[in-house]
């Protein structure tokens, strides 16, 4: 087992455990923090995959901006921390069961897919994850979606005005 593998497993375990913590922690703030941990783990994976740009963006946008926003909202609401009402056990059980079945099904599918057998992911190497090729692609081939996504932001902005205005 080489370093990469060790790192992979460690990060994966970390991500999964943190993700589970998001679910189980009663305190929403803890959930947010755990989710940030998941994002860090995922960023770690990005780095393993040499997708440096995304790793950075992930940290900045997700762990930074978005999660802070979440945290901010939670703080703003000042919800009583430990008294969040819980769903019935049976519903939770069914929820876990369905999530589990979904996972089983999808995993089964992937295992059945012959085309994926023996396919390797290129670790560390490759330059496509670096900012230069990405930027180039973004502003040549993907300039249209890039421009159009501005419409998305505009509409979100208008929406925030509509919704947020007292």
């Amino acid at each position, binding site marked *: 087992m080489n370093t990469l593998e060790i790192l992979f497993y460690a990060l994966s375990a970390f991500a999964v455990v943190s993700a589970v913590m998001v679910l189980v922690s009663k305190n929403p703030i803890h959930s947010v923090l755990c989710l940030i941990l998941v994002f860090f783990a995922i960023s770690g994976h990005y780095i393993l995959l040499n997708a440096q740009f995304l790793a950075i963006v992930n940290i900045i946008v997700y762990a930074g901006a978005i999660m802070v926003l979440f945290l901010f909202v939670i703080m703003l609401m000042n919800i009583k921390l430990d008294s969040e009402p819980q769903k019935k056990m049976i519903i939770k059980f069914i929820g876990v069961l369905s999530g589990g079945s979904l996972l089983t099904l999808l995993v*089964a599918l992937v295992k059945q897919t012959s085309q994926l057998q023996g396919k390797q992911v290129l670790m560390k190497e490759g330059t496509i994850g670096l900012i230069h090729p990405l930027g180039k692609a973004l502003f040549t081939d993907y300039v249209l979606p890039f421009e159009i996504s501005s419409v998305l932001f505009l509409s979100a902005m208008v929406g925030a005005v509509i919704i947020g205005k007292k």
Partner: protein
Amino acid sequence: MKIIIGLIVLWPLVGFLFNGLGRNIWSKKVIAYKATGYIAMSFIFSVLAFLNVQANGAATVHYFDFINTASFKIPFDFKVDALSSLFLLVITGVGTLIHLYSTAYMKDEEAPHYARYFAYLNLFIFSMLLLVLGDNYVIMFIGWEGVGLCSYLLIGYWFTNATYNYAAKKAFIMNRIGDLGFLLAIFWLIVKLGTVSYGTVLTAESLAKLSTTDITGITLLLFVGAMGKSAQIPLYTWLPDAMAGPTPVSALIHAATMVTAGIYMITRSNILFSASEFTQHVVAIVGLSTALLAATIAIKQNDIKKVLAYSTVSQLGYMFLGLGVGAYSGAVFHVITHAFFKALLFLGAGSVIHAMHHEQDIRKMGGLKSKLPITHITFLIGCIAIAGVPPFSGFFSKDEILAAAFAKSPIYWFLGVVGAAMTAFYMFRLYATTFLGQFRGTQDQEHHLHESPVAMTLPLILLAIASAIAGAIGVPELMGGHHWLSHQLAPIVGEAQEAALSHQTEWTLMAVSVTIAVVALLIALSIYRKKADGEPQTALGKFLYNKWYIDELYENAILNPLNKFAGFLKEVVEKNVIDGAVNGTGKLVQYSARQIRLLQSGQVGYYILFMVLSMILLFVIWFNDIAILRFLFQLTHKS
């Protein structure tokens, strides 16, 4: 010829339209003259037609095609031959007399109803003429149903009376049962022969095309038709009830003409009937049973018209016996004589009822002999004629039938004679109770007793003469006669089969039957000349008085169950089963609507859960080969 025959039929129709449409316009006098006059005209043309037949033989005339389709054709043709021309004479002749009689009998009615009465009567004659003149079974059927309709209308003439209406309805429905048989027979003929014209159906070639089953089936169905119209067991109960109509109607329709339609029809189709031994037996047995059954009932009836009605049923039974044993001309002979004397008797009874102010119970009469002399004499002649005393007409006709019956089977003959004896007995019981002895009615009635006007007595006299002498047309060779009628009908029914019996036997039979009849009538006279019947005492008496409880039997065994069945269909099957299924579908939709609505619980958590589950379901549907099991297998058996 075409015009003459057409006019025979048209006159009554014109009368019907005239009276029917002008019922609020014309005075009673006009109505009476016109109505009677049209039938009289019809009679005159009938005589012309008859003479023409005598001179030139049978004739068929074509008017138009009633139904003419690519595959099938029913011409509107009339046929006058010996048989139909005779019937024409009887129908229009007796018809004229009865119209005449009616003008006086119905004079108390208001003008519109008076007109209505004559319109019906004219329509009846029209239908009856169609029946006998038609050259095919369909035209006959038209007349056949038409006379049933008129019978219905006339029985229910006094429509405010519920009982009369019921009687009318009963008559019509029973007739319809028979009509269905007739109709099916017609269809059978059409299927097999493709035509219904007598000219093609009633020939040897056609007969050859029919199998035995066909012939038996067709004839039996035809006979069912005859049963209904001619009041034979089991469809006879309407006829006594039909006495609810005005008495002239009873005389015309329910004695002289319509009820003999069955005999006409069978005589017309004699080729078919003769070809089926089985049917002939059935006809004979049914006829004989009817004759006896009705006669027994007549013995105990107290309503003057009821006695005559059962007598009619009984006599019709005789005619069918005659048909059944192959004595077609005998049957027709009896039809003719019966038309005279039974019309006479009914009209006489009408005269009595008229005098008695619509009293019909003979127990309340008696001693009318002196008060109503003409009625009395003519009625007596009628009684003698029907009792079969020579040389009155009934003797000859009945004798011809009995002789033929003997030739077929002595038992038929014996039972026939028993019936004849009963006939003599009940007729003279009727006569004696009505005319002899003391008057038993109220003072008021006695005060008003008077002989009927001439318009009523004239028909009585004419009919009495006819009843007395009509036998002349069929005096057998045995007695020095020419048997004219039989020769007349020979082209249609073939020569009579008298030859089967020796003269010796014939004379003996005649003597026996006449003796027994005379004895019976004398017994009746002796019993009833002084007193009327009381309430029946014996079980048998009650049984007969209540007409064998046949009406009750029909009521309980057929009508009520059917009614219940209909009620069951209406209330249970229709409402709950069929409509229930339809409404149930609607209810099911609504029920499931209410249930499925609950899925939409409002909880977004459930929604997402359902989405996930549905997604899993989709995967399972798609991935329905046992991929999951395979996967689980691999997990546990990792090599």
